[in-house]
């Protein structure tokens, strides 16, 4: 049947949805654009939330950051659900083969005991930091505004659960699946003085009301420092001290960090570029949380790598923030 149809009659009557056309012109749109822009409701919400009657269900007022257009937060990775899970599936396939290689050859036996102890004390408790990050990002996703940023926050939140699970599996590899290493790591998290600063930072951030501030404290500041300190410097230190095979187990988080930093930097940069008021607010938040984070991480940095480590991490973070137009 269709063979008789003249192609001219099969010309589309429009290229994309009207709201996409209003933003990007009358041309075929990408899947990221159609899945993202102007999807969230903006008006006529009927009922004020019983749990927060001072706001509408979707409300720009839940952060002090002000944006003319909340869809300015374009994700440089252009993740919508499909592209997001496919990217992570690829990465997890590599991780899976790393973990099974490690387990099958029992590479743990080649790692000196004291290094293993150090990993249980200094690396495995980070699963709880990831848990805090999960809460903070999902918080932003649920109360933030505009799909561009809220979807990315949800992907990030779920990534953090994934990271927590990978870190937990490191513990399980070291304790032969007994769960002892995880319990031990949790005791450090709860009681060891070295972790209390970070734990208190996490608890404080989970209670922050402004979702954008919470994002800054978690994704920009704490994660930025931890990435430099743990996944670059401590990883190198482990490699230099007989624990090089751990890199196979943290490779996922390392690659994840690289991809995520691009998004975090873009968000911070776009918010700062929007207005002086935003910029000042961001700098104020950064000032407070960075000072707290440095204090919290100091004993860990010293123990992981040495006295210089934290300053190097801070330097790297500040460079990233400078690039985003802040702290200059």
């Amino acid at each position: 049947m269709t063979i008789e149809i003249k192609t001219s009659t099969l010309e589309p009557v429009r290229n994309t949805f009207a709201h996409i056309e209003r933003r990007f012109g009358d041309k075929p749109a990408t899947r990221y654009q159609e899945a993202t822009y102007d999807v969230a409701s903006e008006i006529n919400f009927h009922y004020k939330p019983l749990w927060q009657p001072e706001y509408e269900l979707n409300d720009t007022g839940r952060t002090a950051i002000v944006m003319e257009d909340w869809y300015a937060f374009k994700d440089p990775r252009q993740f919508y659900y499909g592209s997001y899970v496919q990217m992570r599936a690829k990465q997890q396939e590599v991780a899976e083969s790393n973990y099974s290689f490690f387990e099958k050859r029992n590479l743990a036996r080649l790692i000196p005991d004291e290094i293993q102890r150090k990993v249980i004390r200094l690396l495995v408790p980070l699963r709880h930091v990831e848990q805090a990050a999960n809460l903070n990002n999902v918080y932003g996703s649920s109360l933030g505004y505009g799909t561009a940023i809220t979807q990315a926050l949800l992907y990030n939140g779920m990534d953090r659960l994934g990271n927590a699970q990978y870190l937990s599996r490191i513990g399980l590899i070291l304790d032969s699946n007994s769960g002892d290493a995880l319990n031990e790591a949790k005791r450090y998290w709860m009681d060891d003085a070295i972790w209390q600063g970070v734990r208190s930072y996490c608890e404080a951030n989970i209670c922050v009301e402004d979702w954008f501030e919470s994002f800054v404290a978690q994704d920009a500041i704490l994660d930025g420092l931890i990435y430099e300190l743990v996944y670059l410097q401590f990883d190198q230190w482990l490699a230099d001290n007989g624990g090089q095979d751990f890199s196979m187990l943290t490779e996922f988080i390392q690659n994840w960090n690289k991809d995520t930093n691009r998004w975090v930097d873009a968000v911070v940069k776009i918010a700062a570029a929007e207005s002086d008021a935003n910029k000042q607010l961001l700098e104020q938040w950064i000032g407070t949380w960075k000072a707290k984070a440095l204090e919290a991480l100091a004993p860990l940095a010293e123990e992981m790598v040495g006295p210089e480590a934290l300053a190097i991490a801070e330097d790297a973070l500040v460079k990233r923030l400078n690039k985003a137009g802040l702290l200059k």
Partner: protein
Amino acid sequence: MPVYALNPGYKGERMDRVENFHGNQIVYVGWDEHRMFCAAKAFPLPPSMPFAAVIENIMPEAFGQHPEFSQINWETAEWLLDGEPFKPQLEASLEAQGVGHKSMVRFKTPELQGFQNAGV
């Protein structure tokens, strides 16, 4: 029963207060057992409007499309106002005879059974 809310005293804004209708009030009119019209209809009317004007102007607008409309005998129509039996006073205003904001005015036409006598 009041809502259970995080903080006591939750009270939503009443969206349809009469003051929001620029001097009008909403009146609903429905023709019983005439399903050609899927539901009763809503009209913003001045409270001072006499009932005669409702019959002369509003009823044709609301129900004039029905093939039986011209046969309605308003003398024998039976009325309900907000669920209670009601006898409209043609010269009196809506307000004066208790037709208030968001009142429901229903009428029945005993001699008209609808299209094909099927309540349509």
